[in-house]
């Protein structure tokens, strides 16, 4: 176990790919890690974990929002429609009103 070992080219490439993905995340999911300062496996590992978890969280939150919206739409569809009460008067359209004025 040596977290102070220099991160190899593969791990640094992975960090760079995750940074690419992190830039597409909404701000609230982003890390505060400065990737240019990452040198060791331990530092890389911390960043890799944070962004991987953030990507999963962002997708999980989006699914929750989607299902919440789905429930609201379903609930709205199930509400009984209000009955319209007729006043006996005919509605005059804006177009008809403007014609009368002329």
């Amino acid at each position, binding site marked *: *176990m*040596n*977290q102070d*070992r220099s*991160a*190899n*080219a*593969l*791990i640094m*490439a*992975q960090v*760079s*790919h*995750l940074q*690419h*993905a992190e830039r*597409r995340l909404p701000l609230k999911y982003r890390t505060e890690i400065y990737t240019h300062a990452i040198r060791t*496996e*331990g530092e*890389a*590992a*911390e960043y*890799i*974990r944070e*962004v*991987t*978890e953030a*990507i*999963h969280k962002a*997708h999980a939150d989006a699914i929750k929002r989607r299902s919440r919206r789905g429930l609201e739409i379903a609930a709205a569809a199930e509400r009984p429609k209000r009955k319209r009460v007729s006043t006996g008067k005919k509605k005059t359209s804006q177009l008809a009103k403007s014609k009368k004025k002329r």
Partner: protein
Amino acid sequence: MPAGLDQLKHIVVLMMENRSFDHMLGSLSAVDARIDGITNQLSNLDTTGAQIKPQPLADFQGQLNPDPDHHFPAVDLQIFDGDDSAGRAATMRGFIKSYFNQRRDVKHSQMIMYYFPQDKLPVLTKLALEFAIFNRWFASIPGPTICNRAFAHYGTSFGRVDMNPFDVIEPFKSIYSRLINAKHTAKVYYYDTTSSTMEVVNLLQNQPQLFGTYKQFKSDCDKGLLPEYSFIEPNYNDHDTDSGEEVANDQHPDHDVQAGEFLIAEVYMHIRGNKKLWPNTALLVLYDEHGGIYDHVVPPACPPDKFSAQASSTGTGMEFKFDRLGVRVPAILISPWIPPNTVVDRVFDHASIPATVNKFFIGDDPQRSPRELNADVFIEPNVGTVDAKRNLLSLATMRDDCPVFDI
């Protein structure tokens, strides 16, 4: 229909990191002459002009530091020994020269020729001798990890020969999307979130539901939830977890090779020890590329891909049309339906992985890369008449003598 193919329900691929065939399995030619490993005729010249032969002196950790260069230009030097003429021929004699460039230490550069004696890798060598060992499984590209792993996921690297993020170009899809669209099941198991995946930009970012952890892989095996196709990624870094320390087990130089041996044994035993999974699962253990380490077999030509890498992006000053394979890597296919001591001489590369999985679970599909369409399959499609000579899961009855590792 052959019983082994008839029963096959799961294909599991474990892809390790950066070791060549000769380095890991070359010692086995002394045990079985059909295995194309180390012989006394092989050598490379070092930078003093001395002839250096491969020696069984590889150690688990500490020798390959710095990490041997395996980017496209370095691999070109390793294969062609610095010859960049039009009619050049591959010689596999530039490995020491390439490694010397990194530390400029003659003695140290010779370590690139070291290989493991059989007894130092009891798991990998046992599996190789007990099941099917591939004499001709090559990396897909003479280059580094990311583009080679892309071939395992997509059947192409979309023209990339480097480590940069790449875009998936339609109509080609990952093997996972193809399976899920066809109502099959697939998962990529990374080791844990601190190791994560090497397929961040396209798969993790867009389809995180495809991913599980290695712990989940074991749990899915136990609960009968293993998908039809699983791709396992090893642990790429040393890190702490809530339950203790996790040591990198990918075998990437200079990570501990023994930790990787343990991972391979554990994956094998988790399938082997499950009576419901063992008869109907095939496990492929292989390496993504050679990692700059010596191998003696010249990578063969192959039909070109739809994409090419321009001279400006290869680093060699020459265009690459994806018309030859990378350096040879260890690959072993495991199933109780495979006869012991099976040696396969047909040519494979990582495009053979989606090619096999696609053909076995979905069938033929022309919307795949030219490289994948031309790649050989390591498991025959379970339709029509199966060619007995090609079928590796050929036993009429399941073996009950398969090895067990004490882990």
